[in-house]
């Protein structure tokens, strides 16, 4: 059997001489021309933007860095002309750990470091094996033990005293990791041929998407306990966590459904025609492709869910935004809200930016042309 590609070796025709593009089209000059001054309208826009930046950037820089104070008390801050970063440095541990007992701060710190280590380790797709799941379960148990105490000579700490960054991370990391598979299941259920499952999923998704997260949090924290028998209480953080999971899952479900509908029918047929059953078809063929397509919208949802965890303040949980606000209610630090909020914004930005950065990396890695 001779095939075409084995016999034909195509060579591109040799260029007669090596011609370079004009200098004005490559390098820095070329880039500036092509992107900043291509046409009179863009040239004007560029100049206006440069003027605006020149007006805003230097004063901000002076306020934030040159005239700022970093390690003083409140009185010295009021005398300073620039930013009072002291409000962050002096209250750093309260902003980060909230009302967790001061001398035990090393425990949430260790829990967070463990979480970061696990997240960092999980970044590499080579580590996505069953052992990773056990690693996470083990890590979870240790984190829970560190936060809660009461075993191995660790002093017990009521969950009502948890707060700050560990609480934000707890709510978001477990909210998102639990919501994602639940959302996938809901999307599959919504496409099910069994009407019972399908309508259940449709009703669930539409109902959850029809109400704001705040009302779900209220329901979880105020209405739901009314239905519980007397004497039984469910941890408030857990109720908030469940509300976040249920809420995010409904949104993820719709995005996943979009991905499933975008799959070519031929992929289902090819998988089925070799005898794969429904679950294997989904697991091996359809979901890996569909979930890859929907990485950008999924990450949008995850990012907004991460930021939405700040809404738990309304049921009196002290996440990192609330602890920062609490600092501002101290008379010594009153009035320094820009500095505090900039700090919290940076924290959130780091979280969101690393998510989107990682998603772009995943997209690149999974791109098979």
């Amino acid at each position, binding site marked *: *059997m001779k095939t075409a590609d084995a016999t034909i070796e195509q060579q591109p025709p040799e260029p007669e001489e090596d011609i370079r593009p004009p200098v004005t089209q490559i390098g820095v000059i070329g880039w500036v021309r092509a992107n900043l001054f291509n046409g009179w309208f863009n040239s004007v826009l560029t100049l206006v933007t440069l003027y605006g930046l020149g007006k805003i950037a230097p004063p901000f820089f002076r306020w934030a860095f040159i005239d700022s104070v970093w390690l003083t008390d409140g009185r010295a801050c009021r005398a300073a002309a620039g930013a009072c970063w002291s409000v962050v440095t002096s209250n750093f541990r309260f902003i980060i750990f909230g009302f967790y007992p001061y001398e035990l701060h090393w425990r949430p710190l260790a829990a967070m470091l463990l979480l970061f280590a696990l997240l960092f380790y999980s970044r590499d797709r080579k580590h996505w094996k069953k052992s990773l799941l056990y690693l996470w379960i083990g890590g979870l148990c240790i984190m829970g033990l560190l936060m809660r105490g009461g075993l191995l000579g660790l002093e017990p700490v009521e969950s009502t005293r948890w707060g700050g960054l560990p609480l934000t991370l707890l709510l978001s990391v477990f909210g998102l990791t639990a919501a994602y598979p639940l959302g996938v299941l809901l999307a599959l259920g919504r496409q099910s041929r069994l009407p019972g499952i399908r309508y259940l999923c449709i009703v669930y998704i539409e109902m959850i998407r029809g109400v704001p997260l705040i009302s779900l949090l209220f329901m979880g924290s105020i209405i739901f306990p009314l239905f519980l028998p007397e004497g039984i209480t469910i941890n408030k953080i857990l109720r908030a966590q469940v509300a976040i999971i249920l809420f995010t899952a409904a949104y993820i479900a719709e995005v996943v459904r979009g991905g499933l509908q975008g799959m070519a029918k031929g*992929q289902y047929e090819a998988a089925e025609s*070799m*005898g*794969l059953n429904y679950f294997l078809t989904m697991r091996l063929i359809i979901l890996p*492709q569909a979930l890859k397509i929907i990485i950008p919208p999924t990450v949008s949802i995850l990012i907004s869910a991460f930021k939405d965890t700040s809404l738990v303040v309304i049921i009196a949980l002290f996440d990192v935004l609330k602890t920062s606000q609490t600092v501002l209610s101290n008379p010594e630090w009153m009035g320094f809200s820009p500095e505090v909020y900039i700090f919290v914004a940076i924290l959130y930005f780091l979280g969101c930016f690393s998510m989107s950065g990682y998603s772009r990396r995943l997209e690149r890695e999974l791109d098979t042309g």
Partner: protein
Amino acid sequence: MNEETKIQRPDEEVIIEIKGMHKWFGDFHVLRDIDLEVRKRERIVICGPSGSGKSTLIRCINRLEEHQRGDIIVDGIALTNNVKNIEKIRAEVGMVFQHFNLFPHLTIVENLALGPIWVRKIPKKEAEETAMYYLEKVQIAEQAQKYPGQLSGGQQQRVAIARSLCMAPKVMLFDEPTSALDPEMIKEVLDVMIELAQEGMTMIVVTHEMGFARSVAHRVMFMDFGKIVEENTPEAFFNNPQHERTKLFLSQILH
């Protein structure tokens, strides 16, 4: 129907039996009273105008389409709603599609080994060895680690054939395997199919490649409006078509 007696069929047991089969898409009667018996090692080419139901017919054989009346028995198992039976039949019936339908997120060798590993429960290493064997057979072993998107259409279709062969199917269905290919790539795919035919594979091929039909088919069938209008040996079919519609069709495709 005296021509039918001239058809040489392999002296083997029947592997596919279709009796009085009908299918509708909504109200549209797409297959009407189909009777077809395929023996082991037999090779059948089905042709006909677009919309005549030829693809639907072979897609009924592995239940990608569901028939509404009549019986289809494949390898001794009747096709019903029994999911386990359907999966069993699909494992024995390979299918090659017009648009290849390779899995774009898996490498070539992963595409081939997937079925054996998950359906046949063959150890991964062994499945990959089988995969390499068939890739060599279709002459693209050197592409094993690439992704389907990096291959030409002809190469992809050869991979798709090899993927089916890895399941060691008893029957192979081809649904217009060369229709989506650039002209210069048709031959490399047909060559693979001819070799397969020479090895005695049971094949049902929907195609308009009449050269292929002449050289390998035991029977050529012509379908129109959901019916098998005419069937005959390749020589009789092409040299002496009986039916007006067959003559018209042949005059349109053999210029």
